[in-house]
Structures are given as structure tokens and as C-alpha cells.
């Protein structure tokens, strides 16, 4: 019973937040338009957090996702600027993400560096590379093709005034893929086994190194997708634009982990974490709360949720 209370605490928190804003902002918050807005605003964070969940399932994490996302955006934009077609820029960006992830994976799984240190190092490397190839400038305007930036402005028209943004659909697709991979494939089960006990997993014949490598590659790929979405949304690319994604993505997974039976990450729980962060941001902005105060609040909520959960776990 206590376990259930602890597990559902975070979900109750989300509902409480929604209720709070619904009361405070009766005219604007619970409207279809605003909710669709929120879904678009959180879509990049969502993609990053969903794919971050993949490495966190194994007990690892990836600090470099923000700079991978920025680098992927820059890579695409640089190609666009020199006249390459949109599809080639997109493929190049995704390749950059996979390559970055593989590099992280080699450092962690084969060289044996702690993920914190390895990805802290690559964070700086990827960020520096983004500055280098963009010459430190923002690429924007005519250099970004309209068909690329148009993606973020398109959507699926459902009814009068109700258009589901393409960004939201993209995030939902990533969610579905990650959900199937983690929960319904043998691959995902093996990742959870590594997270459960890496030594036992290895002795039980799991190819721990190769799986860690591939999981980092997937996280890198997800970061690149998020970076492309970001670049499309702002119709420009600069070397630091996605760097804020990393901390929020990890925070979202941690919030989700408070809902796991054993404190393990689950991608649907990560969705709850993303929603908490996104809705808080949206609601507090609408209430004209100072953005600095907003940051303090969001940080405090993450710490409080994790603290309550680990306290509860000790007691149960």
C-alpha cells in the first residue's frame, strides 16, 4: 500500500499541478490550443528524455545530449548553407548523433570510463566542434530552407482550430518506439538486466559491452532528432541552442524513476516527468512568474520528489 502511494505520488503531483493551473488560469490553461502548445513546447525535451531513458535503464547516463543536439543542428544547417538538399542535411545530422553516441559508448563500455566523466568530456568536445564548424555564428535566414523550418510549423488538422503539431507527432512516435524497444523486445529486457546487476548480467551471458555501446548510440540518435526539431522550430542553428536539454532530460527521467517499483526508469514514467516540467514551465510563464523563480521552483520540485521517494523506499 505504502509502495503504491509512493509510486503514484509523482502522478498525483502532476494532477495537482494541472489542477492548480486550471484554477489559477481558468480561461487560458485548459484549452485545446494551450495544451497543444504545451505538447509542442515539450516535444524536444520529450525526445531527449525518452532516449535518455534507454541509457539510464542500464544505470548509465549521458551528459552530452545537449551538445550532441546542438552539433546535429549545426551540421544540418552548415550543409543547407552550402546548398545541400534537406534530406541529406537531415541524414548527416542523424549520423552525427549516432557517431557521437557510439563514441560515448566506446568510452564507457570498452575503455571503461565512468559515464559521468566520459560524457562530461564529450559534452565539451561536441560543443567545441559545433563552434568550430559554424565558426561560432548562428546560421539563419535564407540559409535555412523553408521546407525544413516548415516542419515545425506544420501539423495534422483535426477539426476547426485543432491542429496537432508535427513536432508533437514526432515526439509521440519516438515515445512509441522507445516503449516497444524497452518493454517488448529482448533487447530492452537485457538492458534492464544490466541495470539490475551488471556483474550478474555479464556472468549470465549478456553481451554487456555491445549493449551499452548500442544504447549510447540510440541516445545520441535521439539527441540528434531533438536537435533537428529545435533547429526547425527556430529556423536557425547556433552552437549552444540545445544545451539546456541535458539537465531537464535527466531531471525528467529522475522524476519518472520515483514511480518505478524498484526505482527503475520506465519510458512512460519519463513522460510524466516531462509533462511535469513542461506544464510547470507553461503555467508559470502564463502567470508571469519571473523565469529565475521558475528555475528555482522546478529544481526544488525535482529534489523534493526524489527525496520523498528515496525516503519512502527506505521505510517500505
Amino acid at each position: 500500500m505504502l509502495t503504491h502511494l509512493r509510486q503514484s505520488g509523482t502522478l498525483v503531483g502532476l494532477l495537482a499541478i494541472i489542477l492548480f493551473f486550471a484554477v489559477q488560469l481558468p480561461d487560458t490553461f485548459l484549452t485545446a490550443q494551450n495544451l497543444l502548445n504545451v505538447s509542442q513546447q515539450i516535444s524536444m525535451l520529450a525526445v531527449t528524455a525518452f532516449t535518455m531513458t534507454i541509457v539510464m535503464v542500464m544505470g548509465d547516463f549521458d551528459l552530452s545530449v545537449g551538445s550532441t543536439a546542438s552539433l546535429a543542428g549545426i551540421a544540418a544547417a552548415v550543409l543547407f548553407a552550402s546548398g545541400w538538399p534537406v534530406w541529406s542535411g537531415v541524414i548527416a545530422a542523424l549520423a552525427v548523433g549516432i557517431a557521437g553516441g557510439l563514441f560515448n559508448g566506446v568510452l564507457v563500455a570498452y575503455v571503461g570510463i565512468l559515464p559521468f566523466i566520459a560524457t562530461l568530456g564529450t559534452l565539451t568536445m561536441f560543443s567545441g566542434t559545433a563552434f568550430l564548424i559554424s565558426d561560432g555564428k548562428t546560421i539563419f535566414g535564407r540559409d535555412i530552407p523553408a521546407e525544413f523550418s516548415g516542419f515545425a510549423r506544420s501539423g495534422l488538422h483535426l477539426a476547426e482550430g485543432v491542429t496537432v503539431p508535427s513536432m508533437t507527432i514526432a515526439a509521440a512516435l519516438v515515445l512509441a518506439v522507445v516503449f516497444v524497444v524497452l518493454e517488448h523486445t529482448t533487447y530492452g529486457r537485457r538492458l534492464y538486466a544490466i541495470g539490475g546487476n551488471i556483474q550478474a548480467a555479464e556472468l549470465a551471458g549478456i553481451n554487456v559491452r555491445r549493449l551499452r555501446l548500442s544504447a549510447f548510440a540510440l541516445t545520441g540518435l535521439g539527441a540528434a532528432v531533438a536537435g533537428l526539431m529545435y533547429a526547425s522550430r527556430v529556423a536557425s542553428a547556433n552552437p549552444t541552442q540545445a544545451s539546456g536539454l541535458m539537465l531537464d532530460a535527466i531531471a525528467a527521467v529522475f522524476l519518472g524513476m520515483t514511480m518505478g517499483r524498484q526505482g527503475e526508469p520506465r519510458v512512460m514514467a519519463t513522460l510524466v516527468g516531462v509533462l511535469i516540467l513542461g506544464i510547470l514551465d507553461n503555467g508559470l510563464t502564463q502567470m508571469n512568474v519571473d523565469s529565475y523563480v521558475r528555475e528555482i521552483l522546478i529544481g526544488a520540485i525535482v529534489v523534493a520528489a526524489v527525496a520523498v521517494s528515496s525516503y519512502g523506499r527506505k521505510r517500505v
Partner: protein
Amino acid sequence: MERLSLIGLSKSYGGVPALRDVTLHLTAGRVHALMGENGAGKSTLIKLVAGVVRADTMRVERDGTALTIATAADARRAGFRVIHQELNIVPQLSVAENILLGRPSPRRLSLLVDWRRLQDRARVALEFMGAGHIDVTVQAGDLPTGDRMLTRIAAALVVDADEAPPCLYILDEPTAALTAAESEKLFDVIARLSARGAAVLYVSHRMDEVMRICDDVTVLRDGAHVMTAPIAKTSREAIIQGMTGHLGNDTVLPRHTPIGKGIAAVAVGVAANRLRDIDFTLKQGEILGVAGLEEAGQSDLLRLFMGLGRVTSGHLKVLDDPAPSGPVQAWARGIAYVPRERRAEGLMLGMTIRDNTLIPHLGDYGIFARKAAETDRTRGLADQVRLRFRGPDQPVGQLSGGNQQKVLFARALAGKPRLLLLEEPTRGVDVGARAEIHALIRGLSAEGCAVILASSDLSELLGLSDRLLILQQGRQAALVDREGLSPADLLARIYSPKAA
């Protein structure tokens, strides 16, 4: 101090008694040996006296006056010094700091560490040990193993000015990591400590040492006191007899089916890591017992068959192929492993019985997991190993030790193993589960699965094995038929430095 009495020591862990009403009298100036097989209760006894573990019942009297030993600080204040078996030094700190760890450092201006005085005190302690060659300023992690042990012993020798002189030294297998020359120095120190009027409780597996340096001996078996006698009035044989007790009437199943003809594994003069001279041929369905003192290389030997560790000379053939490249290949070829530490090395405690059972066999399902099929298979396997559980989705961490062990057997069975590697398969398992696990091993062997069984449980080894391989410090010291081997013979071979 003349006499220190440890009276009525009892301790149970989760209902399983580890020590049952043991009483021990130690005398100043005498070295008292404590002997027993693995799991006899020696370590528990030491932990109780050291105040590391709370006793269920214990009375400690010094010259008739009761002492309270509830914490490690109490034990220290009473003048007890304990050198535990595990090498616990802090590798990042200097030797001097390690020796004076946990004590207020000498200060300058009551703020800064007085390094010179600190080092002088450490040097004095080392010189008393005859280990003046150790540089107290180097990081302890840079020392060779023997010197690290000497450092730890020196730490136990330090007496602060405001402390009572120690009245009891407890040494738990102190020579395990020492060379012969270093051991000699240690024996000299022990002689000087006891000449100063301290009592020494000396725990060792090494019969020769005990016979040489100890005055009295106490033997424990299964947590109970068996005998106490002056060394001069007893014999090696009597001590071994005391440690093993009567093993003949154990319930282990005898072999009913013949050993197969086919060959499961061949090792010819294999050396790897610590292992040397490993040489045997294992037939299908044969059970090879591996015996030895703790850490004699049992894990290394089994892991070699899992593809962990590199053969440096000789050659190894497993199921008609060269040794596997690693656990992935080993499981795929039908080699199953039940590791020694089931919680640390075997199970994902937070995950379900189904996940834990099928983890090495997920490849059977292709890309997509099939929960229904996996659940059915887990139920079948659980029945086979007679698992007592609520359902395949129950987390393994909620099961008893015996049932956790059965999950590992279910995992092994699921792969239809042709070679089964077992390490302490019934450690910490209740009697009923132990018998069931023994029946499983017999059953697998009858189906032609070869088994390598490393165990410190002699009745298990003698009850199941067809042959026994005896390891001494990584070397294959003997390979003997079970037929006609008595427990005392086996123990003598395990304990003797050079078995015939």
C-alpha cells in the same frame, strides 16, 4: 589480566544459527587457536567479540569482572585488538596515516597535523613488528600485499598514551597473505605480545602454524563448541576429527546411473591467472568435486570454463571446442554457471523470477519478448526445481536464500546444459532446499550433463563427487577418486602443505 572469559556466545542470522552457546576461556600469556571448517562460526565469534556484530547472547568477564561489549569502541576500550581477515587499508593514504587511522592525529598549534610525530609513531609500531623496512610516507596502495598486512598488524599494535595496554589480540588468518619469511616475523611478534601478558586468539586454517605457535586449541563445528585442549595434549588427527565430525550419515544421494563414455572437457597442464598444473579429463555425466581452502583458486577454475581468464600455457578443451571466448559463448554452447555469491554475481534482485530465469536464454525468442511464452516456461522450470513462489512476476529479492538459489538452477536448466559449473551451490540454504538441490545435480548428471562442483561443504563434495580435485594456492595438488576416501583423508589433503 589473568583470565578472559567469553561465555555463552550465540548469534543467529535470519533464524539460522551461526554460533550456538560457545564458551571460551583465554589466559594471559597464552596463544589460543580457534579452528573449524568454513562456516563453523569462527568469523561470527570474532565479530561478536570485536563488537562489530551484536550478539544474541554473550557475557565477557575479565578476571571475574563483567565487561560490556556492544560496539567496536567498547571492544577497543576493553583492550581488544582485532585484525580482520579482509585487507582493509585505505590505499590513498600514507602508511603512517593507515597505521594511526581512527585516532586523533598529533597536532601542531592544535590545528595542523604534526606529520613528523605521526610518522615517528607509525615507525615505532612497524619496528616493533620487525617491519622497519616499510617507508611510512608512501601511499599504502603502493605496498605489496605482505607489507599491507604488516601495516594492518602494526595498526593494531599502537597504544595511545591514555589507553589501557591491550589485553587481547585476535588475528583472523593473518598469514594468508604473507610469505614464509613474513610469517616468521609475525610469529615472533605474537610471541612477544603474549610474553608481555596479552592473550592471543589465533584463527588459522594452517595446521602446521597452529601446532607450532599455539598453546591451546578450540574447535568449532556448525556453530557449536566441539573441543578445547592444550596443543601438547592433542594431535592433528584429533583436531581434524573434531572439525569434520561424523560425515558418513549425510543424506546426499548416491549415484545410481553410470558415468557416460563421451568426454565433456579436457585440461592438460593448464596455467591461467593464479592456476597452475590443472590436468584432468571430465566425462559426460561425471561430477568432479573441487576442494581446497578458501580462495585456493576455485572461482578462477570455474570461470576459466566460462571464458573468463586467459589460458597462458597448456590447453583446454570444452565440449569438443576450445575454451569459450566469454560467458556469451559459454551459455550458447550449453555451459551453465551458478556463481558463488548469488546476490552479487547471480541475481538481479529487483527483477522478476521470469527475467532472472530466462536472462541468458532471451535469444530463443528473437527480437520481440513474448511474455506469455516466457511465463509458461518459467513456471515449468520453477516446478522442476521445486521453487516456492507466488508467481513468475514476483521479484527475486523477496525469496528466501534457498529459493533464490533454485532460481539460479532454473536458469541453468533452461539452457539444457551439457556442462554445469557450480560454486558453493548450497551455501546459506536450508536443509530441505539443500537436499532438493542435490537431487537436481544428481538428475542432471544422470542425463549426461558433466558437473564441476566447487564447495567448502565436505559432506556435499563427498556425497556427490565421482572424483575430487584438490587445489592449493591455485595449484592442482591432487586428483583422487571418491571411492575409499574418508572425510579425514580429504581434509588432510586440503590442509597439508604438500599432499601426496
